[in-house]
């Protein structure tokens, strides 16, 4: 670090003569603001990093408790003998810890944008300098700036990896099995609400690369949401779940309910956080569900049925075994 301060001084002797390394007035030269923003940026990142680590540690403990409550089996599947209250409590804890993972991910994405701009600008500047300046300090300074932007990104990546490990590795997941497991868990609840279940789950659907616990969470959220939309007043209570792999490389899951539905204008709105009709709900289920699906490279959206209710659509990239591609 000290080398850079010295070379900064060599570049702008007028500024140094005016006195003070952290001169408050920014001169016309670009040397001063650069280094100051650099320090501020590093401090901000350090602060964010600390917050994230503390938050992660708190939430990882909570999550471990939640997973225990779910009666964790070998692969983290929800055991079908867990009762619905435990599941809901676990779901809440899971939602909170997933929110932090979500936060880390979107923070990473947001921070990578300016970091990429910093690195690219520095790299461009180095190229633009040309042979006249090639021997001087400036190319080295610019190289350091680009390298340190990369280092900052590494920090973010390590934080995200830390969180991802908490949530398990990615495997090839059979979504039909996931749906079936969640249904068996909810069966009593569905019976109590007198909801009729229609399943169209063709065999041999391609698997999806993903985190089975997270994907289970998505399906649970969507099914609970659909079930809760169908109250006693609804004329018919049909929940239809279908998978479709006709489009190559994509697995589509649709969950259709015959509940209260929503206005066309609300269809995007329901995916926002804290939007819920439930009195005691957190209102995060669909928002988290969509984040998980998008993190898996897929899409999730809702449409209104021509009759009653809504249909939730989930698209996930599917793994296909193609002869010409090697498995990784």
């Amino acid at each position: 670090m000290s080398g850079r301060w010295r070379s900064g001084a060599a570049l702008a002797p007028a500024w140094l003569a005016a006195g003070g390394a952290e001169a408050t007035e920014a001169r016309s030269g670009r040397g001063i603001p650069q280094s100051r923003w650099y320090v501020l940026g590093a401090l901000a990142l350090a602060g964010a990093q600390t917050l994230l680590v503390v938050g992660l540690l708190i939430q990882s403990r909570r999550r471990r408790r939640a997973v225990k409550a779910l009666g964790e089996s070998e692969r983290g599947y929800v055991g079908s003998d867990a009762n619905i209250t435990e599941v809901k409590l676990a779901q809440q804890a899971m939602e909170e810890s997933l929110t932090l993972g979500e936060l880390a991910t979107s923070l990473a994405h947001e921070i990578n944008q300016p970091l990429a701009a910093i690195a690219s600008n520095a790299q461009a500047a180095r190229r633009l300098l040309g042979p006249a300046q090639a021997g001087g300090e400036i190319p080295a300074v610019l190289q350091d700036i680009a390298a340190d932007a990369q280092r900052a990104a590494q920090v973010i990546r390590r934080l995200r990896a830390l969180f991802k490990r908490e949530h398990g590795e990615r495997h090839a997941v059979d979504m039909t099995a996931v749906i079936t497991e969640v249904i068996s868990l909810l069966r009593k609840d569905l019976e109590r609400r007198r909801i009729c279940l229609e399943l169209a789950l063709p065999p041999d659907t391609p698997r999806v690369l993903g985190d089975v616990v997270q994907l289970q969470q998505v399906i649970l959220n969507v099914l609970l949401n659909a079930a809760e939309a169908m109250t006693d007043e609804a004329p018919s209570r049909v929940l239809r779940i279908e998978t479709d792999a006709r489009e190559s490389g994509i697995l589509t899951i649709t969950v259709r309910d015959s509940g209260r539905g929503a206005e066309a204008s609300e269809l995007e709105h329901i995916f926002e956080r804290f939007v819920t009709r439930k009195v005691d709900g957190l209102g995060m289920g669909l928002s988290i569900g969509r984040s998980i699906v998008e993190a898996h490279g897929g899409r999730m959206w809702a449409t209104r049925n021509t009759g009653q209710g809504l249909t939730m659509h989930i698209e996930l990239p599917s793994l296909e075994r193609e002869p010409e591609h090697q498995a990784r």
Partner: protein
Amino acid sequence: MVDDDAPLRRALQRLLQAAGYGVETFGSAEDFLASEHAPPPDCLVLDIRLGGISGFQLHDRLRASGLSIPTVFITGHDDAGIREQARRVGAAGYVRKPFDEDALLSAIEAALGRCS
């Protein structure tokens, strides 16, 4: 190049021009589709996460309309699922942000070297 982050567009344009390429930038897939490009670009540097139509969707649309432009996907959100998808749709390259200069430029070189 299509990326919805304006400062990054500027920086990347500077870098690629300094490296000797001609660069046209767009802030969204819609802007790109609406523009006239005859002849089509030799290479497309495409951000995956865009407002509106996503990078993958734009890539699909171009392929569907018969335009096969070698594409290098870029993203600030890097994970196995997205990398797998990029590989599957036949991307010429995949580089994560912030860019390693050599990684980005060799991905573009490779894309330009491909027969489309």
